[in-house]
């Protein structure tokens, strides 16, 4: 099994799995905090329609965890709000 990193953890995945699927297989159901009410979110539609599973991949925010295919060494991080606090400074 190969691995990618999620925040400070190492997550196993099988070839062809999405980042979101690998996280759920690892027992993680949320990886985003909403901008307005600071509520946790994770997979909802699972097919790229709802954008609820947004996550930061290799530093790029707002990627859909249900679509991004897991790959070795990917650096995945939870996303706070819009994921673009850098622009608000």
């Amino acid at each position, binding site marked *: 099994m190969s691995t990618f990193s999620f925040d400070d953890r190492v997550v196993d995945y099988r070839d062809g799995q999405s980042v979101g699927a690998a996280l759920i297989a690892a027992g993680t159901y949320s990886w985003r905090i909403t901008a307005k009410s600071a509520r946790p979110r994770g997979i909802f539609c699972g097919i*790229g329609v709802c954008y609820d599973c947004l996550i930061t991949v290799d530093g790029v925010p707002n990627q859909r965890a249900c679509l991004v295919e897991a790959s070795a060494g990917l650096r995945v991080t939870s996303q706070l709000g819009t994921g673009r606090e850098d622009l608000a400074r």
Partner: protein
Amino acid sequence: MTSATPMLSMTEIGPTVTVIGAGPAGLAAAVEAATAGIRVTVIDAGARPGGQYWRHGPAGLDADLHHDIALFTDLHTRFQRLITTGKITYLPGHQVWTLTTTADEATVHAIDPRDVAQPVEVTVTSDYLVLAVGAYDRQLPFPGWDLPGVMTVGAAQSLLKGSGVVVGPRVLVAGTGPFLLPVAAGLAVRGSRVVGVYEANDPIKWLGQLPALLGQSRKIREAAGYLLALARHRIRVRHRSIVVAAHGSLRLEAVTVARLDRSGAIKGSIRIRIPVDVLAVGYGFTAQSELPLLAGCEMHATDDQTLSVIVDDQQATSNTRVFAAGETTGIGGAQLAVAEGTLAGAAVAHVVGRSVDGQARRLDELAMQRDQLRRFAVALHAVYPVPSTWTDIVEADTVVCRCEEVTVAEISEAVALGARDLRSVKLLSRAGMGWCQGRECAYATACLIAQQVGTPLDLGSGAGRPVATPIPLGLLAATYPEPAETDQQQLN
């Protein structure tokens, strides 16, 4: 951050068609048109062909999860052969973000976001388009539905079929429609403890739809197979039952279910709380409508309250450059999608004068099969409608628009301020203004407006989406030519 735009114009090499979507309808349309000698480009958001119905991982379809495998194998084999011989250009992992049509051609702009740091844009111009863009689960809000662990039945299914991941150890499946059955059966077969299937409608209603069941022995056998699998795993299907709340602090811990009476209203005061890890829920499907709307195709709300493309017997839309097939023309399942896709491919061949000889009888039979499957779909919609009582279940602080976190109370406030349709409610409340552009909440918001204003359900006013999928601004800028120098001087 975007690379150069390859221009795949093929007008000089005979008639061309671009098929959007590689699910049952798209695969069938592509294979039919390419076999007739038309150059086909297939653009699909998925990593592998098959769409949602035949979604699979690198190892292929799973005998214990997938259905109509022989049909897929046949289409897929022909599809791959046509790719190898250069008749089909296949662009997987590409999302169409806009399209335009003129009197003589159609241009599709797609983005390949698989390299997150460097998305690539592709522009394809062809003589005709076949839109085979599919559908997604329809959702109704209820208290707690935004908790992690609550997901669509489609999500549970796609995680299982595409990634081989069971969504949780203890799962409750709820909503309405026959799709709940394969999802529950698949989860059980792969080791989940499915604590029950809670179906809002009552199958007794099939008694009023018997004529539509004639000739549908395949569908009946399929349903019987699922029920048998559920019985084997001791999973009960409870009818006229509905999830009225999801509970948990940071993730789902339990759901509350209630019974419905024959009219679909909540019956009595009995509420049962059931501990679960995951709730997989869905109330039928919504057809993907943004690309047909961008193409200016005439649309209508079908009997299941879904905005769908109007097509004629040849699968032609009101835009002479555009054909449509599958769920986008009305929700009806994979077999119907394959029939419509095949007919659309043949219709494109016909309009460019490439009809294959000796196919008339086969196509007539397919058209008959399509019409029969459509009648079956209409019966299905009548048996499994959205339970109208859902608006009694929501509370003032229940989130309706998940993206912008807009509540029932905020939508009511917009209506109180004078908003009378989806568009004005969106402008006042931000419901439908977020990342998903209202795909998830438009139906629920439209129902709330109709109820509060006392108008008929209007799905149309919020459905237009000029950009069908979010794209980087840099890419948008690169798509359109820089203003001429004189214009820039004027601007300065």
